[in-house]
């Protein structure tokens, strides 16, 4: 059933276009969006692993050099793609569900952007073509800008515009790097480029090859929200609707791992590649968590924490061993789930209180006990408290850096986890445990049930992955073994 592989991209893409075109039929749009959203996590689970060649152009074997060339845009579908596409599909379903239950009259363009973003990240993680990846990276960037601009939060337009302006630096720079690679190898297929590099057909010390790494790496920093783009990324999260922010962060994580895995396959022969990744990951962890500690806007705080957590993913990938890469990718999966839970949970508090400043909140445990408890567990998962999934991936990362001979990185990872825990203790106390301020109006304001349902689903997965991490790590480890 390899025909299902392109369907994973086509379904959300077509749904986006149809919803946008027929959005004036409100009820039909709602039903259609709901049905498509349900299908999104099911399709990857029903599909078999394999390759899909667009246009049916199968690889060609060069009998002289005995090298295989890939003329078609190729989609590769393995366990890694399956798990990430299924999770982002599930998250899209939950986000669409929250959105549809929140508004009586839905916005066609907003749903269009949600589905377009999902289609773009799905294509990015499936593709084996670096230019194809770039095209969807651009589509994703526009969808992200749209999701932020379409939210009804103050200054969201301004933040979206800033993100777009910074993108106008990051994206062309990445395209230039891809152009350099094309000039060197004559191909945009990642397998072909990697084969050329590893077989010595490309001089890896040539300035053009090194510059292509530098330029693509800079584009990756923009896509991932690692420093110097951590401020805008956290700002974008804080100015989106809570359910939109939950989806946006999953887009960021998947685009981060999609691009870095492509870079890893091409540039891993250069030791400086891993040095660069580790350097920026450390910077992201330090800046993300230290700035989160000083925030009074809890949406911004989660935004900075999400950026800090990206550093853990980068750390795992930068260490470059099978175990560390598995840990990094497992951490990516965990971060998608945990951060989505936190964004939706804190979003529920905004719904109930219309307040984002922690100093003006208090005593919410008595009014919203379910949300409070689920947020507490989510925060503990992010800080790496056992037996939750964050603990499993962070423990793996600590072990990986010890195995690689970098105890400093292990200590740093533990320190960042402790600081993350401090952020949650502080925020939880301020919002839920301290006495309620007199001027805070809470009566007759309920948290939407759809949000509680969404948090419950995410929490169950978080706990299950914490107790049974092997369900995911074994498959990821097999995938990593294949690319190393």
């Amino acid at each position, binding site marked *: 059933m390899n025909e299902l592989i392109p369907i994973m991209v086509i379904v959300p893409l077509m749904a986006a276009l149809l919803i946008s075109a027929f959005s004036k039929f409100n009820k039909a749009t709602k039903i259609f969006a709901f049905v498509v959203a349900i299908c999104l996590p099911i399709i990857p689970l029903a599909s078999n692993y394999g390759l899909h060649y667009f246009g049916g152009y199968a690889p060609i074997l060069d009998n002289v050099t005995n090298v295989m060339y890939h003329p078609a845009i190729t989609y590769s579908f393995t366990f890694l793609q399956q798990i990430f596409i299924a999770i982002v599909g599930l998250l899209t379903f939950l986000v669409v569900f929250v959105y549809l239950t929140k508004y009586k009259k839905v916005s066609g363009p907003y749903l269009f952007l949600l589905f377009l973003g999902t289609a773009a990240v799905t294509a990015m993680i499936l593709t084996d073509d670096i230019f194809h990846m770039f095209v969807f990276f651009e589509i994703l960037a526009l969808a992200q800008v749209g999701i932020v601009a379409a939210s009804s939060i103050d200054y969201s337009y301004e933040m979206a515009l800033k993100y777009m302006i910074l993108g106008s630096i990051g994206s062309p720079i990445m395209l230039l790097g891809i152009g350099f690679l094309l000039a060197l190898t004559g191909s945009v297929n990642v397998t072909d480029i990697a084969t050329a590099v590893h077989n010595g057909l490309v001089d890896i010390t040539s300035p053009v090859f090194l510059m292509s790494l530098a330029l693509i790496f800079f584009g990756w920093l923009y896509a991932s929200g690692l420093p110097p783009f951590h401020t805008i990324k956290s700002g974008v999260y804080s100015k989106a609707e809570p359910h939109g922010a939950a989806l946006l962060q999953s887009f960021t994580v998947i685009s981060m791992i999609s691009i870095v895995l492509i870079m890893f396959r091409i540039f891993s022969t250069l030791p400086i590649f891993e040095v660069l990744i580790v350097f920026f990951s450390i910077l992201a*962890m330090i800046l993300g968590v*230290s700035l989160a500690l000083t925030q009074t806007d809890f949406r911004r705080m989660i935004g900075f924490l999400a950026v800090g957590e990206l550093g853990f993913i980068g750390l795992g990938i930068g260490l470059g061993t099978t175990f560390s890469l598995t840990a990094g990718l497992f951490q990516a999966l965990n971060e998608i789930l945990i951060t989505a839970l936190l964004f939706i949970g804190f979003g529920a508090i905004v719904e109930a209180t219309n307040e984002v400043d922690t100093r003006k909140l208090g005593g919410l445990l008595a009014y919203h006990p379910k949300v409070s408890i689920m947020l507490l567990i989510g925060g503990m998962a992010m800080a790496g408290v056992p037996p939750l999934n964050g603990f499993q991936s962070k423990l793996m990362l600590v072990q990986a850096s010890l195995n690689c001979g970098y105890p400093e990185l292990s200590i740093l990872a533990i320190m960042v986890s402790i600081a993350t825990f401090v952020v949650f203790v502080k925020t939880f106390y301020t919002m839920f445990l301290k006495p309620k301020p007199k001027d805070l109006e809470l009566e007759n304001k309920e948290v939407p049930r759809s949000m509680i349902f969404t948090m419950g689903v995410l929490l169950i997965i978080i706990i299950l992955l914490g107790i049974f991490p092997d369900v995911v790590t074994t498959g990821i480890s097999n995938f990593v073994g294949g690319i190393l």
Partner: protein
Amino acid sequence: MKLYDQIFDVVKQFKKLFSPGPVTNADVSGSITAEIFIIVSLVLSAILLRHVNVLLAALVTLILAVVLISNIPLIPKFKKEQDDSLEKMLFYAIVTLAIIVVFMYWGGNLV
């Protein structure tokens, strides 16, 4: 005594960090945690230079520790540099691009 005064002054300076609005105990303790965290983590990261040269690592770590501690409070400075100003974001993006390109072009095959 001078260092004690300096640390005491840090707490007073955190007031500006949270203005306008009240400054709570939780905010100040969070900021002190961030202050200590940023110093310790940067010094710890500098120790990684031992993989290049042990003497260099020792020197950089010592200098970094002295510079960071003598410049406390760091967090207001960090926060000021990382606000939502587009000019600062663009500045740091371009500086980073320049550093990466220079580092790769002249030092890419040395590591």
